[in-house]
């Protein structure tokens, strides 16, 4: 029996116009183990965010009340244009290869020293990428968490929060592949389980969205496998859940982002990318869809007139104004193509939200910021990656709705990118795309977290600060990517320190004047040592 006590039928949410900046943070978990009843009351708020989530949960079979309160009423216009950054929590990502594929913690000393430095700097927490290919490497259901547990323990002891990113994808640099047993299946399976482009080339770092519910993995569907992974994670890290671990990001696709791997050749991003619908399962789904919509001939393959990876969008008719993308066929294909993306997000997030329900951990998913060519009407980069909405509607709306449904935060990268640094030829506008996605989230009541892009860009820190100050959609958590040699290089680390200080209003420059008058006083406190001062004798 499940009863929704308060709730708007669609989103189970009510909006209240009230600005709350208080931190509510209590959670009592009374586990009465009499019979099978579990009672749990959790009041959850993200610090200084505008969200409150009140859950009263009482065994899955009995009553569950859930109220999510947000003050983001559409008509509430905040008066000041920019807001203080004090409430923004800053996270820093650990290196992708923090734990090696034999479960060894790489550069442990560097990480420990680095974490300590970050703690002192006032950073809130750490993002830890956890790879499927490391944990469940050898055989299905055989999980090895030791390396990641060791990292979590260090993070905990340093006093930082931890954000775990469960990555169901592989990485090229550093090279981390999907689990060995999955790769073996991939080689043997006919037609493949991977995304495939029209040349038949497979993208082996992520499973195709079309196999989500197909029992291709030793009789299990990928969703079942992901679910098992989440459950195993939850029990392995149960001591950290809700205290050290405050957030979990679910990998939704290539590089963890919700998209098709439309750009496989990272070296050449100038093209629009290609559709990835040529694996056996995709093609049969397409065929099925075509038949069911009464256009069986459209189900034989993807668009024939889309440009190749390294071709400019306009070099073939598909993306041009009045081109196939605007035709009835285009709408048919793109609707189907994007629906797979949306339903994939829904599946993964539901699996996760049922696995992590009641742990006090917030769930997140990451979107890409496909800003290349987004000044073109057709938005080719977004189309090949799977973002489309029929009839010119908001192409992010459906996605945001899925996130809202699963009470999931959305991570948007590229908050360091500014239009002025884009090459004019790429017709790119990261700023406007970011604003667009943020608006979609706001409409659906989805909380947005920020990230920077992978590469260092000029003026990046300034841009991040501007984005965080933007009052219209409050970003209350930002994850900076990523720790490593470059991060700690004198030049970069200095810039980062300045950035953190700007966020924390960590006043340093003013102490020269400020302390002048205090000097005598401070010196006289039992000989002016910190030790004595903390004695509380003064």
């Amino acid at each position, binding site marked *: 029996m499940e009863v929704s006590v308060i709730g708007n039928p669609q989103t189970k949410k009510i909006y209240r116009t009230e600005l709350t900046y208080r931190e509510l943070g209590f959670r009592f978990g009374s586990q009465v183990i009499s019979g099978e009843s579990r009672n749990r009351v959790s009041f959850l708020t993200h610090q200084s965010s505008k969200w409150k989530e009140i859950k009263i949960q009482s065994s899955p079979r009995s009553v569950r009340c859930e109220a999510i309160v947000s003050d983001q009423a559409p008509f509430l216009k905040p008066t000041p244009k920019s807001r203080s950054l004090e409430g923004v929590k800053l996270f820093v990502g650990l290196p992708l290869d923090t734990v090696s594929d034999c*479960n*060894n*913690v*790489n*550069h*442990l*000393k*560097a990480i*420990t*020293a*680095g974490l*300590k*430095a970050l703690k*002192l*700097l006032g950073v809130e927490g750490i993002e830890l990428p956890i790879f499927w290919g490391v944990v469940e490497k050898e055989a299905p259901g055989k999980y090895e968490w*030791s390396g990641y*547990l*060791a990292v979590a*323990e*260090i993070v905990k*002891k*340093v*006093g930082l929060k931890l954000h775990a990113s469960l990555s169901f994808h592989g990485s090229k640099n550093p090279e981390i592949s999907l689990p060995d047993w999955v790769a073996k299946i991939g080689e043997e399976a006919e037609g493949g389980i991977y995304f495939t482009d029209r040349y038949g080339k497979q993208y082996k770092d992520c499973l195709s969205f079309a196999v989500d519910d197909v029992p291709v993995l030793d009789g299990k569907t990928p969703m079942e496998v992901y679910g098992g992974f989440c459950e195993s994670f939850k029990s392995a890290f149960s*001591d950290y859940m809700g205290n050290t671990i405050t957030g979990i990001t679910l990998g939704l696709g290539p590089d963890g982002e919700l998209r098709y791997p439309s750009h496989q050749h990272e070296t050449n991003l100038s093209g629009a990318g290609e559709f990835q619908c040529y694996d056996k399962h995709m093609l049969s789904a397409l065929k099925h869809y075509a038949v069911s919509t009464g256009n069986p001939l459209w189900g034989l393959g993807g668009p024939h007139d889309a440009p190749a990876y390294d071709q400019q969008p306009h070099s073939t008719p598909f993306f041009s104004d009045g081109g196939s993308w605007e035709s009835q066929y285009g709408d048919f294909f793109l609707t189907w193509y994007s629906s797979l993306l949306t339903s994939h997000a829904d599946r993964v997030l539901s699996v996760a939200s049922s696995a992590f329900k009641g742990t006090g951990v917030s769930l997140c998913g990451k979107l890409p910021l496909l800003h290349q060519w987004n000044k073109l009407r057709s938005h080719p980069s977004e189309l090949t990656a799977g973002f489309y909405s029929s009839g010119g509607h908001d192409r992010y709306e459906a996605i945001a709705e899925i996130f809202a449904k699963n009470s999931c935060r959305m991570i948007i990268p590229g908050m360091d990118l500014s239009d002025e640094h884009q090459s004019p030829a790429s017709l790119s506008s990261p700023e406007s795309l970011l604003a667009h996605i943020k608006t979609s989230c706001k409409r659906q009541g989805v909380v947005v977290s920020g990230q920077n892009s992978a590469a260092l860009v000029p003026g990046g820190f300034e841009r991040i600060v501007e984005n965080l100050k933007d009052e219209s959609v409050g970003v209350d958590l930002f994850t900076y990517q990523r*720790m*490593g*040699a470059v*991060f*700690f*290089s*004198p*030049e970069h*680390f*200095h810039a980062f320190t300045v950035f953190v200080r700007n966020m924390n209003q*960590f006043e*340093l*420059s003013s*102490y*020269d004047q*400020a*302390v002048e008058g205090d*000097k*005598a006083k*401070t*010196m*006289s*406190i*039992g*000989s*002016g*040592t*910190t*030790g*004595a*001062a*903390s*004695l*509380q*004798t*003064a």
Partner: protein
Amino acid sequence: MSTVPIEPLLHHSPLRHTSLNGARTFLPSSLNLRCHFTSKKLHSIGRSVTSGNSLGFLSSERRRSIAIRASSSDTAVVETTSQSDDVIFNENFPVQRIDKAEGKIYVRLKQVKENDWELSVGCSLPGKWILHWGVSYVGDTGSEWDQPPEDMRPPGSLAIKDYAIETPLEKLSEGDSFHEVTINLNLESSVAALNFVLKDEETGAWYQHKGRDFKVPLLDDVPDDGNLIGAKKGFGALGKLSNIVVNPDEPGADVQEKGKSSSGSTKEGKGLEEFYEEMPISKHVAGDNSVSVTARKCPETSKNIVSIETDLPGDVTVHWGVCKNGNKKWEIPAEPHPEETSLFKNKALRTRLQRKDDGNGSSGLFSLDGELEGLCFVLKLNENTWLNNRGEDFYVPFLTSAALPVESGAAQVSGKTPKTNQEVSDSGFTAEIITEIRNLAIDISSHKNQKTNVKEVQENILQEIEKLAAEAYSIFRSTTPAFTPESDLESEDEKPEIKISSGTGSGFEILCQGFNWESHKSGRWYQELQEKADELASLGFTVLWLPPPTESVSPEGYMPKDLYNLNSRYGTIDELKETVKRFHKVGIKVLGDAVLNHRCAHFKNSNGVWNLFGGRLNWDDRAVVADDPHFQGRGNKSSGDNFHAAPNIDHSQDFVRKDIKEWLCWMREEVGYDGWRLDFVRGFWGGYVKDYMDASKPYFAVGEYWDSLSYTYGEMDYNQDAHRQRIVDWINATSGAAGAFDVTTKGILHAALQKCEYWRLSDPKGKPPGVVGWWPSRAVTFIENHDTGSTQGHWRFPGGKEMQGYAYILTHPGTPAVFFDHIYSDYRSEIASLLSLRNRQKLHCRSEVNIVKSERDVYAAIIDEKVAMKIGPGHYEPPSGSQNWSVAVEGRDYKVWETS
């Protein structure tokens, strides 16, 4: 009689001196100052000395059972307590108690013969004493020192740059604590006075005389700034002492007005008198003790039993509180309290530890409620003496039962993985760091609560952060596989090069260092150089490096004073401008020598220390770094090494950077300089250099980052990666906005040529072993400059082998620099041929070098497949394949070919 107080220049003295009202009060100095103020040497990191005789008394129910602590290990504890006790915390903290040793410094001037005198300086305290000294010559004005003439320097003296000598004090006799040094004086020399300070290398402390250098006048007319010793006027300036009020009750006060001096017999000798003076001196001597803390959970009572024991002598009081509810604030636990406990201001408890029966130290036992999270404490020896844990409170965490499984979970983790060795040491290491962090965190939060002394805490935290980040950086960098700086860095800097004038020229530059150490002597160097313009251009140089142009305290220009006064010993500003114009006319770019690390002051502050500036940039002592005791700066700590002869500029100050940028731009505009040679860039962070380069947009810039190569037992190591890494790091910090002199290559050439070890010239990857092998476009190769060669000869290139050096650098990638003296020597024609070859074959800073031979007696390489070269006595001929090689230049032990 005269009284001479001496103050050891310990760190916080600047603060005392700057107090505004005339009455200066000495505050009690505490023992744990070291973490915050003293030089790092004092707190010899990682000294975890466990005293061998520390016996631990542990008991749960007031019954004594003995724990014996092994002296060699931190953790091995053999104990005979009941099994049921669960040890939840056990740590041995080293603490440093600082005792004050008192003694005296004496200065004696004695006549040996007519004009031969002897000055002895001695000290009665043990230590590694160094006399840091220099002289003033007749007619010198200002307070800067000069180096004494060679014959005055006692054996074992070491020259510190060009202004001072360091001579160690020798023990008078074995077993005697007296140390002394004697300097012979000849009154016929033009030395007017001798200046010195005493330095204790053990502690890093400097001992000055009334806040100034000691000054022994040898002539009558030496201006008295209040710091003369043995002046025959008998210290009429007693009044000067009155501004130092010493409270004799303060035990920490280092200065006592008990100076005794007895003038010896008076003899006439150029007005000089013999004298002997003694001054009391006190020094903090560190004593190492330890505090060992064991916490255990008593399962019967579920109490936490903490045992604190120490081998500190005397009465020891524990000043403590407990932590609960995740709050790191000190709180008073519920009663009952241990014996001998008193409440202190409702904020903490004080418990006196029981003296141990054998008299060696004391111990105490605390039984605390099981719900508590931890115990914080510091130790109090007497009213003014507190001991803490390296600047933090001691903290004993009581792991709650919920946290315990995690602990054991982690242990399992390391147990499961096979790499036990690594894991064990790692986890030991992390445990240590974790305790540190915990303490730090408590400290921070308690400070936040109290809002006291924010500056100090922030400074400490920032320092700590920097240290940690540097550590992380160095490990990450070294563990990041496939570090291929050349390709990486090269590709990185391709982009900015398009945007800004990168300071790295076209890649085809050949530098000429247009002066040597003597060039200032003629007084018309600019004019002399102008006459050589055509000649230098026809030799093939494209860049000329001019000497430092500003007004300077030293004639060579490296002690700048008024940066906007460009009249120097080399000529006037107008002559300089003309010279630049002249060289531009013949197509040679001109580099100015910018001395940014330090600047000589115009005025003294109220303590008589030269740290106030005049001229257009009339900075005050905020522009001076705080960590050079000589100059009492009020800026931040230096971001690099200190150069001790002059106030080091604090580049972290915005106003300083703004002024420097303005100055550089002015020099570009006004003089017409095209770029910079940057002096002593080790002294400040490379990031600031980037800032300056971005502002002044030089065509070419090169920094002098000169430090020592690595040697083992006097033999230069083959692998100098660490050395070149430091230079590359600096270049990196400037974002590649400036290149750097390739000191590594020079050093390796020294060893290779001198000892016939040409195998050194190829690194393990088959690349050149210097900076040029890693980042050729930023390496400025050279074999000699005004410091290493010329009349200074600090690090002279092996004699007679200079041409081998030039055959190397003028054919290899990097930007070569040729020293002026070599152009005007017998090597001239050979250098000229090499220069013309480099230009003819269009070799440049990124040329490909292919090392074909690096053996004991010969090194050979082919550059860009069009120039072949060999150096060394061994045999090499380029391959007679498709290419047709002809000899281009040939000389003693080197040969260069080119394709025709």
